[in-house]
């Protein structure tokens, strides 16, 4: 039943042209972004698209995700139905109904059920948004308009097919249980009325479909078009490893205007559908800071669109990217609030890279404007001048072992370079961890040595804070030294050193085995090399906290848990938010060196969560977490709870 191809064909043509033009307008803006190679490893990319887009892997990781997955899969099926609908409307000679009856019947069956499921899913999405929205502010008119349009499409689909079946003109009526059920209800109508129902349904379907299509490029529902490519173009490297910058004169550094983002950053911004999952896991957003990762991405998109005219004309953007102007700009305070914990990226169903964008904008602030919280001047100068955050003389680096017998690293003779790290060498609390680890290594007969006063800072804080220039110098020096000294295996007990040496230095051509002490201890115990003298029971309930840079950024989750279970004889107690959903201690991303002035303190939020599990000991595997928990427990008046590094827990068993 085709109402009128003479009217519809030009309408379809016009709608398709308009849609193509809108997509071009939007995507040509995305193309204004800087270069970024996202084509390497096509197999991995196809896998990512299959897993995350078609498989809806992250979408399904949350309870309500199944609702979206149903809509997504229904849309895939209905894309065929709607393609057929539009083509048939303009060219009546083309139709799926001309296929062999069994084949057409099977398709009709799928379309009929998909429409029902989509309708149910849309209905529950509407209810959810009213009753318990995913985040405050999610009850937008736009969301309801879109849901309403989808629901309407499904309803008229049934109206159309139900009436056709009632009229007896639907050849696949036997395969359409839902439409047939409706047909029974419509059977009271006269053929003329049924015909009217079909025509009205058809036109509503046609108009809503074309309107929906043309609305997409201008709404957050652009993700329907961009999410699949966005997953394909994902970052296949370690997510927290920011790209290197080339320091050539005349270049601009970092991202200070929207066209300095890469095209992938801009594609990210138009792929965000504002589901809000990132903001419900962001430690800054959850403790009342101005940072909200969803808003940062949204502001980038807004900035891009508002500056469209200037960018098309090859001029600089008018609306600033960083500043205090309302929509479309991120404030400096927002950018400095990020702990680079990566929870946002872990949560994002379409693999948007929120955190690296923040670091890129920090780079602009530090490198081009020298504008940053005043606390950082000392940090930068201390690391640049004395290669440690506190500005302590490098000659003090091996003081922690002044009463021990520790050998310097010698290529060929020593197996592991124990990279003590700044905290391990200078922080009085962390020095106890260093000593504990040294005792463990000796007890297990590991061949290890240190660089002593020649060890330098790895530069983690510099890089996360956007001081790439200083990081670059430090990284070059470190890589050169590690190569010259013939180091092949590095042991660290700081996840920040660990991640930097392992992932970031890869960009500088340093490929060696970097191992975190949780992994080495676990391995030594499994191999029977490290034998404990007793089971450690006096620490009571041991609650393990996943460090972001060990867990989320490097996937080390099981080793520390196995160690705790072996040493204490019982599995570690767990936080509610644990493993890849772990909640940052608040010190990553250089936040260790910054005052936390707005909102509540992140470490206290995490400490309160810990106290809920009633631990006797909180076990950490990172010097920053150690400091943050120590401080927070004092603030919470819970000093009876001990904070211990995993090395200290193990060392207890050697006594």
């Amino acid at each position, binding site marked *: 039943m085709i109402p009128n191809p003479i009217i519809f064909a030009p309408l379809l043509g016009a709608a398709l042209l308009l849609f193509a033009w809108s997509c071009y307008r939007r995507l040509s803006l995305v193309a204004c972004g800087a270069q970024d190679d996202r084509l390497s490893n096509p197999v991995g990319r196809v896998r990512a698209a299959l897993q995350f887009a078609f498989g809806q892997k992250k979408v399904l990781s949350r309870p309500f995700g199944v609702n979206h997955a149903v809509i997504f899969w229904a849309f895939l099926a209905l894309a065929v139905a709607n393609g057929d609908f539009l083509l048939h409307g303009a060219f009546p000679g083309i139709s799926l109904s001309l296929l062999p009856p069994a084949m057409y019947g099977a398709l009709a069956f799928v379309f009929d059920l998909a429409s029902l499921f989509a309708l149910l899913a849309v209905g529950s999405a509407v209810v959810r948004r009213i009753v318990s929205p995913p985040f405050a502010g999610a009850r937008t008119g736009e969301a309801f308009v879109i849901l309403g349009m989808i629901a309407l499409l499904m309803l008229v689909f049934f109206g159309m097919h139900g009436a056709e079946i009632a009229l007896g003109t639907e050849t696949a009526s036997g395969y359409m249980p839902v439409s047939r059920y409706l047909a029974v209800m419509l059977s009271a109508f006269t053929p003329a009325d049924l015909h009217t129902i079909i025509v009205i349904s058809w036109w509503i379907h046609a108009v809503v479909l074309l309107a929906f299509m043309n609305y997409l490029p201008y709404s957050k529902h652009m993700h329907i078009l961009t999410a699949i490519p966005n997953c394909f173009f994902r970052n296949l490297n370690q997510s927290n490893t920011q790209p290197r910058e080339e*320091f050539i*004169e005349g270049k601009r*550094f970092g991202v200070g205007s929207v066209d300095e983002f890469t095209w992938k950053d801009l594609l990210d911004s138009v792929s965000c559908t504002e589901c809000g999952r990132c903001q419900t896991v962001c430690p800054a957003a959850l403790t009342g800071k101005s940072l909200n990762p969803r808003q940062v991405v949204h502001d980038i998109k807004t900035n891009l669109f508002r500056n469209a005219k200037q960018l098309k004309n090859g001029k600089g953007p008018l609306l600033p990217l960083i500043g205090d102007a309302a929509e479309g700009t991120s404030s400096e305070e927002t950018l400095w609030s990020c702990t680079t914990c990566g929870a946002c990226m872990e949560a994002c169903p379409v693999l948007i890279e929120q955190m690296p964008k923040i670091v890129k904008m920090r780079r602009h602030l*530090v*490198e*081009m*404007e*020298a504008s*940053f919280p*005043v606390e950082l*001047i000392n940090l*930068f*100068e201390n690391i640049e*001048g*004395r290669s440690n955050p506190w*500005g*302590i*003389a*490098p*000659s003090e680096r091996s003081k922690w072992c002044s009463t021990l017998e520790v050998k310097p690293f010698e290529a060929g003779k020593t197996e592991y370079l124990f990279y003590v790290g700044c905290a391990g060498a200078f922080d009085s609390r962390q020095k106890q961890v260093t000593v504990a680890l040294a005792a463990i290594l000796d007890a297990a007969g590991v061949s290890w040595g240190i660089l002593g006063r020649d060890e330098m800072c790895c530069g983690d804080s510099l890089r996360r804070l956007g001081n790439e*220039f200083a990081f670059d110098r430090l990284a070059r020096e470190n890589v050169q030294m590690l190569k010259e000294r013939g180091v092949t295996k590095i042991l660290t007990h700081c996840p920040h050193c660990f991640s930097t040496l392992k992932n970031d230095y890869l960009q500088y051509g340093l490929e060696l085995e970097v191992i975190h002490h949780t992994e080495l201890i676990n391995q030594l115990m499994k191999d029977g090399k490290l034998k404990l003298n007793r089971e450690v029971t006096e620490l009571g309930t041991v609650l393990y906290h996943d460090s972001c840079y060990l867990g989320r950024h490097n996937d080390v989750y099981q080793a520390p848990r196995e160690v705790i279970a072996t040493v204490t004889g019982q599995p570690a107690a767990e936080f509610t938010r644990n493993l890849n959903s772990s909640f940052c201690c608040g010190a990553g991303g250089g936040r260790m060196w910054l005052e936390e002035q707005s909102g509540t303190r992140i470490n206290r939020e995490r400490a309160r969560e810990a106290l809920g599990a009633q631990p006797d000991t909180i076990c950490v595997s990172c010097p920053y977490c150690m400091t943050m928990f120590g401080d927070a427990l004092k603030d919470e008046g819970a000093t009876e709870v001990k904070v211990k590094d995993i090395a200290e827990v193990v060392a207890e068993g050697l006594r």
Partner: protein
Amino acid sequence: MRVITCIKQVPDTTQVKIDPVTNTLVRDGIPFIINPYDVHAIEESLRLKDRFGLHTTALSMGPPNAEAALKRALALGMDDAVLLSDRAFGGADTLSTSNVLATAIKKLSQDRPLGLVICGKQTIDGDTAQVGPGIAVRLGLSQLTLVDRIESLDFLANRIRVRRKLEGRYEIVEARLPAMITVVREINQPRYPTVPMRMQAGKSPITVWDNETLKLDTNTIGLKGSPTWVSKIFSPERDKGEMLGDGLSDPVGSTRLLMERLLAHDLLTA
């Protein structure tokens, strides 16, 4: 109008050790930094540049490697930099140093009138605080030391008003220009260089003047012109410290011990 900032490249003294045998400074591998007070002097002149559009010049006397300090000054935004370097200047005390610096300042003032000379209050290696005043006296400049705030600067009336930070009190002083001021840390928060400025400074040539340029009597410069010499450097003997209690297992107890000790020595009043 020119504002000249005198800076010195010094060894990072927190990293300097005294050789117990020879009683000399062990400088091997010790990095050099700009004397920290001089960093505040640079910052203050940059702020004057921002406010009044003054031409800022960094001036230093030292070995050729002192270029690094001047490059840092350029990276921070100084307009130009002059290094006074000659073997004949070596071994100088504050008397001959101020002689060389004053001569260079006079030379610099020929093409652009001098408004202000800014120095750090003292260096962290010599700790004499004499070079700034020495320059002021030689050039007949108003001498304003220990400044923690420039209250006002009026180039039409040729007046400067500053606040001096003295022990336990402040002093507001007004003087005529040109003046020499020495600054304390509290005067400002130094800035951090941008990367383009750093890269540009790295390439910019530093003007180097030797004694052929300054034409000073060799009896008034370097070792010969220095009546002061250092006969010995040593670390003062210090009484050994003492561990009070076991702070780790009994923090309250050790705090009590500490309080008792402080009270006993009359360092706390109950």
